[in-house]
């Protein structure tokens, strides 16, 4: 068995909290995982230093969301608001964790959000964040923090979105025979719930790729007792992959970080996909 497929490899889960709907979904998903894996939950709230700097600029006025009117930003008020948000995030974490009897800690940091998140919990095995946080354009794709975590992070990252559960339902793993895909499969099997179904998408264009895949991972998945479906999908386009995955109606997408496919394909796939994505990295 591959070294990263050992059970119990996830002992600590960090979750980014900022009171947005995405971050609530992240918290629920992280708590579910922590509960199932008996892992510790670490809540991280980052006070955005950019915001604080901006508030201190003399000429800055904000455009209010629900009236479109402008108004001065008061640094003290902003500090108070951030403290309040941090308290709310802490309480939210506490309530969720206590309901599931999970060990938990809460950390409040100040700085650039992506950087602080990356470095906030070095001991955590997974970092859970919302696909998009509080970015102004409400864009469909990834938010700036998620993108930074995806591009620059070295830790396994779970990108959540509201309205979808992380690991209770079906799981989907992209398999190309690489070490990264094997690692992804290992994590998927570890976090799979009792009701989960595993979809294995074989992306290798070779005709016998599916058979090879069965031979390679068959014993592992069989021993896990999780029902598994194999799909042979020799696609290299991220958008097409996303459409196919939508048709399967699978849940959490688990990807290895070193797949034998173009980085662009992966980015498109992660951008387009409507489901949570777990990117498994080797630390």
């Amino acid at each position, binding site marked *: 068995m591959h070294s990263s497929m050992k059970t119990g490899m996830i002992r600590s889960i960090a979750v980014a909290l900022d009171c947005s709907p995405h971050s609530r979904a992240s918290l629920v998903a992280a708590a579910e995982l922590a509960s199932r894996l008996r892992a510790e939950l670490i809540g991280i709230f980052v006070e*955005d*230093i*950019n*915001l604080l*700097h*901006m*508030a*201190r*600029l*003399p*000429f*800055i*006025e*904000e*455009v*209010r*969301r*629900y009236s*479109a*009117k*402008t*108004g001065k*930003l008061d640094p003290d008020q*902003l500090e108070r*608001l*951030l403290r309040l*948000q941090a308290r709310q995030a802490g309480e939210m974490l506490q309530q969720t964790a206590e309901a599931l009897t999970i060990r938990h800690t809460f950390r409040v940091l100040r700085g*650039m959000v992506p950087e602080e998140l990356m470095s906030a919990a070095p001991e955590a095995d997974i970092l859970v964040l919302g696909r998009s946080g*509080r*970015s*102004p*354009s*409400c*864009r*469909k794709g990834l938010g700036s923090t998620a993108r930074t975590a995806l591009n620059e992070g070295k830790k396994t990252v779970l990108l959540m979105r509201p309205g979808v559960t992380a690991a209770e339902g079906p799981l989907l793993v992209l398999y190309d025979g690489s070490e990264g895909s094997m690692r992804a499969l290992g994590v998927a099997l570890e976090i799979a719930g009792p009701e989960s179904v595993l979809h294995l998408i074989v992306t290798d264009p070779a005709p016998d790729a599916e058979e090879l895949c069965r031979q390679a991972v068959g014993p592992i998945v069989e021993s896990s007792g999780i029902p598994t479906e194999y799909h042979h999908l020799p696609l290299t386009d991220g958008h097409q992959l996303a459409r196919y995955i939508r048709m399967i109606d699978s849940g959490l997408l688990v990807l290895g970080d070193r797949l034998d496919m173009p980085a662009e394909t992966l980015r498109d796939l992660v951008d387009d996909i409507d489901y949570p994505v777990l990117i498994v990295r080797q630390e």
Partner: protein
Amino acid sequence: MQVPEKLAPCQLFSQCDPQEFEFQTTADLDGTIEIAGQQRALDAIRLGMGIRHDGFNLFALGPAGTGKQSAVLQFLSSLAPEAPRPDDWCYVYDFEKPRNPKALRLPPGRACALSSDMDHLVETLFSVMPTAFSSEEYQSREKEIQESFQEQQGKAIEVLEREAQEHQIALIRTPGGFAFAPTHKGKVIESDNYMRLKPEERASIEKEIEILRDRLQSIMAQIPKWHRESVEKIKELNREVSGFALKPLMGEIRSKYLVLVDVVRYLDAIENDIIENFDQFLEKAQPDQELFMMQTSQKQMSRGRFFVRYRVNVMIDNSSMNGAPVILEDKPACQNLIGDIEHSAQMGTLVTDFTLIKPGALHRANGGYLVLDARRLLMEPFAWEALKKAIRTRQVRIESLAQLYSLVSTISLEPEPIPLDIKVILLGERMLYYLLSTYDPDFNELFKVAADFEDEMDRNHETHLAYARLIGSMAVREKLRHFDRDAVARVIEQGSRLAGDATKLTTNLQGICDLVHEADYLASGAGRDTVTADDVQAVLDSQLHRASRIQERLQEAMMRGTILIDTDSEKIGQINGLAVYSLGDRNFGRPSRITARARLGKGEVIDIEREVEMGGPIHSKGVMILSGFLGARYAADQPLSLSATLVFEQSYSGVDGDSASSAELYALLSAIAAIPVRQCFAVTGSVNQYGEVQAIGGVNEKIEGFFDLCSERGLNGHHGVLIPASNVTHLMLRSDIVKAVESGLFSIYPVSHVDQGIEILTGVPAGEPVAGGAWPPGTVNAMVFERLKAMAEKQKSFASDHEKDQTKS
């Protein structure tokens, strides 16, 4: 004047001969009942039920127990099946005016079908709607609309964000909105560093930020409009999807009711409402997600209440009706007549909806007949007025009494009135009919036909047979023993006795029914399969015994001499009168001593009962007639110089009726003429100014009352009763009296004139006037005349002495 003969035993009781019946027992009869002796009432019922015009409702009047209800129901049971079956009625939700539920008329049996169609529709929609809205097509279209809004919004901001980035300016989300800030290497410039910038650089940045802010403001101002547009698009999509899912279901239901315009209109309204409220069919109860039970139950209740609007409240279902309905409402309270709007308590609040509208008797009887007891109807508050209003306006309008009188202040409904086509039959006593007729101006207009039921009917073979059929049908219906023909004959004789007339039978069938039940009970106790005449007689004896406590106490008082009644000697100015006492439904007679005293006076007969206000007006009238008789007969040519007093001895309560006036006259004549009266007789009968004896009521009870006293003291052959000759046909006396008469121990004399009576009572001839108007000497009349003449002369001499005294003075 010739003294009448004593009545023969056969005149005392009109026997019913069992041999006149062909049957042995009532089991031989076919079990049908015919309404006998009520032809007048039946003609009225036929007329009332036949005329379908307004106001031809019926009032069946007559004493209780005369079979009004049976007659009416029997008549209607033959009429109603021939009439057409009335339509069904139901109440449905009015989508335009929710406070005014709509009344829908459907052919018989269709209301329930519509109700079940609607229930089924709602049930089906719970699966059809979620399927339609969870389809991939819908989901993707909805997502597309939402994303298009997001995209529109996001793109506008993104363009701005990008432009800002070109100028090293970042768009940052603040807790309350957005702001632009100058950046350096991705980080917002701190205020100290910013202040170190050249003034022109700062001015340029600030200007740029101001421009960007203005543009952001104009984008933000447009966002609500974009949002509204996208919401409208989603609504349109929802309407399209729900309409598409609903149309086939509605089409299926509509096809069943195509000819019913109102129903089709109602279904159209339902369709529109469901399309507007499709989301109600998508929600599923999620109790686990609710933190508070209270919130859950409130939410569920309000959801439950929502779907009530699609239900159909079937008020009247005539699917199993055979012809027109005949409804007998036993408790005609207002809400039982016109229906009611009930309320249910939810979380301490009273709420109602159109499904809580309950039909009344008027709804159930619509298109048919409603039978009500008038007394019960009038006893119920507001019921009479409600009934009249319904008949007058020809519609049933349900009004909550509590609401009308502000007893409750909850939201209530005003259901659409239902057109009324009905015949109302009221059953009641005559008094009620005449009171209503006199004092209620609407009554005669609304109840134009009166069916007057007779208290009694002629006694003949047909009516005898009708009695037999009644007994037979009762035995079958109520599983009693059948009566043999002797027992039937005995019941008929009792019917005659209850009528108080040997030539009539009572129509108070309640009394007869009670007799039949009791006789059956006795026969069962005796282990007989058939009821015999002995059983009937035993019942009558037992009834008599049960009700005779007061009578026996009075008899005892007479026997012990507490109440003075002489039945042996002869006394001047004293006679045994006969009175009838009524206690509940039981009458009995007893003798009363009447005495008269005469003296010189101004020609007045003083009724002591009247003087002390214990005598009724009829009694006073009878006594005044005596003055007229005495004056005209004995003092036509001279002043009546008599002062007489008459009294019912030992009477401690009121006396009324003129049946003792003949007895009073005999006592008066005896007192004037000083001739003793035989106390072995008792007398009854009223008298007119010519001395003719007139009929009275309760003759049987009076004779029996005197007979019982004499019998207990010992009959000696002299005892007897004087009754008016016109009462002979009313005699239905007890068998022991008939036997006593047969053996000569008791006599009954039919008297038509006081001269006959006084001769029997005194043993002195009354005397008939000879030529010149004089009375033969030695007769009662001569003695009375002489005494009055002597009194007049004495009066005259007193008057002249008095005048002389006055002249001298």
